């Protein structure tokens, strides 16, 4: 049930193995890994900088994880997010959910990412060949997160 925010790079494969190790009741592990892309907003990226709000980041991630644990019968839920300078193609974020059967792990992983994208205090700044700029938030991310709230209302 780990929440980690770190500047150091990580190996998604090793993280996946650690999620499963010693959990003999786990029948399914679903993971999401986000990477630094080479092109964004028509300019080649040289480096990505991830700013966060140290007093709040881990608390916000734990709240998202706890909400997923309340919604689905999970065995584990793990969130790892990098901050600071990141190079091209490096992993930024890793989310893993484990459960007895696949459906809970699939849904919970997507839920955690949708909420992380709209509620966790991280901001990307791209350093490109044409200068530096903050990445704009996307309405599509807001809509993705709102989907879960709409689903809640339908089931009430």
């Amino acid at each position, binding site marked *: 049930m780990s929440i980690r925010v770190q500047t150091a790079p990580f190996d998604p494969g090793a993280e996946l193995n650690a999620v499963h190790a010693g959990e003999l009741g786990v029948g399914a592990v679903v993971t999401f890994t986000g990477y630094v892309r080479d092109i964004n907003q028509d300019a080649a990226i040289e480096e990505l900088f991830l700013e966060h709000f140290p007093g709040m980041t881990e608390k916000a991630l734990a*709240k998202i994880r706890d909400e997923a644990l309340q919604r689905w019968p999970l065995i584990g839920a793990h969130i790892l997010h990098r901050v600071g300078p990141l190079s091209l193609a490096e992993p930024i*974020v890793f989310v893993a959910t484990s459960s007895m059967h696949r459906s809970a792990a699939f849904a919970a992983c997507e839920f955690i990412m949708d909420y992380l994208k709209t509620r966790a*205090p991280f901001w*990307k700044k791209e350093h490109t060949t044409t200068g530096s700029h903050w990445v704009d938030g996307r309405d599509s991310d807001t809509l993705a997160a709102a989907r879960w709230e709409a689903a809640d209302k339908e089931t009430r």
Partner: protein
Amino acid sequence: MLTVQFLARYRESLQCESEQLPWQEQWQTVDDVRQFLIARSGPWTVLEDPRIMCARNQDVCSLQEPLQAGDELALFPMVTGG
């Protein structure tokens, strides 16, 4: 007192990371403080951003969240992690 923190793009535009404001009795919500700051004009109009986000005592909240003296308020642009 009220501690206000500015993050990411706002911090850069305002050239200010954090500010201690003497508490004003007429302040009731986060938006009251935001309007007080916007009224300074110049770079402070960055806080007119319709997609502004905020947190009271490290919890994400709405602009209508009630505030009280001693709170820590954070104002920040839409988040872009993941």
